[in-house]
């Protein structure tokens, strides 16, 4: 049924941006990211001057200001990594499901990862960083399969609204289970609650190193599936006609996406809406070609999460606000706007 409709390409100009425009946007996004990273190490409850920042980046931590900056560096790196992972993961998910509402948060995949981590902590003593990541990825994969199965029942297959509804319901269910598991366990409750809101606050280089291989693997798999996502965007029949092995391509891309959001959730907790907002912005900037859109989504996701983290520190001085809260406040209106759009059939 879906293949009979013409692809709703926005218009030719958007679909085929000239290379120079894309290159310009690439420079702009990279510049913004660098600025945000600088802001992220400079802004906090203790104000520091640029000389302190430069000194700290050079490895010195003699004064209090320099020490503060030194503590903010891993946090900034983590925000960039997690943001890139979530943005890319959302872009791939939207491509795989051809669903403008796909997002690791909206589809309940984050919550699957969270429940797995919490269950692992509570019942199996899986405290080490690596085992946490593995359980998170397994949980994310299970949740993804479950939500996709529930959302594709019935007439018309996995429509955007059906998938989003199945995801929201699954999220609600998993959240209840997480609370029920964590609440009686005073020993892990503090861990769970600080992590459940979604934050990059407590990052050290020790939290980043274990997750790095998973993120890199997910990044490579996702970026390599850009070409097949382009074929899938034409509809399953046409993609098969072009020689794409549809099921395999979809599986590989989904695996990359789950790897990214599972690993990101394991270190930073479930963060909503980054994966939803970012691909839509990127499609406006560089068009629908996944070979450009995917790297852009990673960069823009990094910008968004770093900006949210900085904003959380400014908004709640002298304490701070977890990024998960900020992204929900920023992302939910965006979600509503997409739901409101008339033609919500497919990408």
């Amino acid at each position, binding site marked *: 049924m879906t293949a009979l409709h013409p692809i709703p390409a926005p218009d030719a100009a958007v679909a085929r941006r000239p290379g120079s425009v894309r290159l310009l946007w690439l420079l702009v996004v990279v510049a913004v990211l660098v600025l945000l990273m600088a802001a992220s190490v400079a802004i906090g409850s203790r104000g520091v001057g640029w000389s302190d920042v430069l000194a700290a980046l050079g490895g010195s931590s003699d004064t209090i200001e320099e020490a503060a900056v030194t503590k903010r560096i891993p946090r900034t790196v983590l925000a960039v990594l997690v943001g890139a992972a979530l943005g890319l993961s959302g872009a791939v998910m939207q491509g795989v499901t051809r669903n403008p*509402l796909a997002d690791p948060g909206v589809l309940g995949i984050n919550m699957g990862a969270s429940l797995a981590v919490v269950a692992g902590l509570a019942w199996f003593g899986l405290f080490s960083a690596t085992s946490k990541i593995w359980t998170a990825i397994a949980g994310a994969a299970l949740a993804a399969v479950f939500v996709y199965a*529930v*959302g594709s*029942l*019935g*007439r*018309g297959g996995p*429509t955007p*609204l*059906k998938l*989003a*509804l*199945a995801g*929201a*319901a*699954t999220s*609600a*269910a*998993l*959240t*209840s*289970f997480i*609370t*029920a598991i964590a*609440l*009686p366990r005073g020993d892990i*409750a503090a861990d769970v*609650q600080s992590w459940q*809101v979604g934050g990059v606050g407590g990052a050290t280089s020790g939290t980043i190193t274990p997750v790095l291989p998973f993120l890199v693997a997910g990044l490579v798999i996702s970026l390599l599936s850009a070409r097949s996502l382009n074929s899938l965007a034409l509809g399953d029949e046409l993609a098969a006609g072009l020689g794409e092995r549809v099921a395999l391509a979809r599986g590989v891309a989904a695996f990359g996406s789950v790897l990214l959001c599972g690993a990101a959730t394991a270190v930073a907790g479930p963060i*909503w809406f980054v994966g939803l907002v970012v691909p839509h912005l990127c499609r406006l900037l560089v068009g629908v070609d996944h070979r450009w859109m995917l790297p852009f989504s990673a960069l823009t996701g990094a910008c968004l999460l770093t900006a949210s983290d900085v904003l959380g520190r400014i908004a*709640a001085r002298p*304490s701070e*606000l*977890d990024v*998960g*809260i900020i992204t*929900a*406040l920023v992302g*939910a*209106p965006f*979600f*509503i706007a997409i*739901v*409101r759009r*008339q033609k919500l059939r497919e990408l």
Partner: protein
Amino acid sequence: MTAVVPFPASSVDAVARSRVRRSSRRRLVVTVLAVLVVVTFAVTLMVGRTFYPPGDVLRVVLGEQVPGASFTVGRLRLPRAVLAVVAGLCFGLAGVTFQTMLRNPLASPDVIGISSGASAAAVFGIVVLSLDGTAVSALAVAAALGVALVVYTLAFTDGVAGTRLILIGIGVGAMLNSVVYYVLSRAGAWDYQEALRWLTGSLNGATWTAVVPALVALLVLAPVLLGQARNLSALQLGDDTAAALGVRVERTRLVAIVAAVGLIAFATSACGPIAFVAFLSGPIAARIVGPTGSLLVPAALVGALLVGVADLVGQFALGTRFPVGVVTGVLGAPYLIYLIVRTNRAGGSL
């Protein structure tokens, strides 16, 4: 089950008989539910760290001084038990009103963000503005009405599409929940139990100052809704048919929304949005009553029973003391998924 009784199309007698049978069954169900609510209420008063026999409890309730029991039962357990019944009635009644009116079991106020609105306003009132009692409830009512209006307006693009309304409500709810987090974390004294109270609902620490506004709201608003019961049932047939039957559609809808949102907001500002009670009560009541007449009264009773039993289970059955909302959440969420699976299978309106 009762709906498939085969009767010959010509036989008026058979229709009349089955109507009588169904309405007597309905009376039976309502009576049984009411008795169960009273029993749960009594058990809540008796059971605890120390057990008090029914005689002692009755004397305390009647105002006599009983050493020990007067404090434990009268001060600690009575407000909690009353709040459980009142909140359950409020949530059940309001939930089924929304579900009937919007003709969709998913469109209950706790799913579409209205409860979250009341909750966010209550937290804001208590933490930031240092209000209490009726002022908090008033703020919650205003916010919940505002959220209902916003969700309805946003969902309205040539006719309110069911799924769109629900998803927009879910989005609004997600935003409001992070407002709750924000306010509580700004308050400094971040406390997981307190956060849970405003995210999933809890009866812990119920006092008369919290119970009274909810009780008054129930006494005022429930009769209003029950008075609209016939009109609401007619609305289920669609606006045009209802209008043809003599129902003033817009007026009925307005009265029902305001009354139901009021119930939700007052109950929520007393004990938080107890998860999924509003959502579950209607379908459960429909299942046990069968397809006769209005579901308002049975659903309200089911709500009270759910909250009462879930609170008992949460307090005593599981080793740890769970807030009531966690118990109802664990019960309700799988049902939510089941409902979606069933709707999708049937090729529903999505």
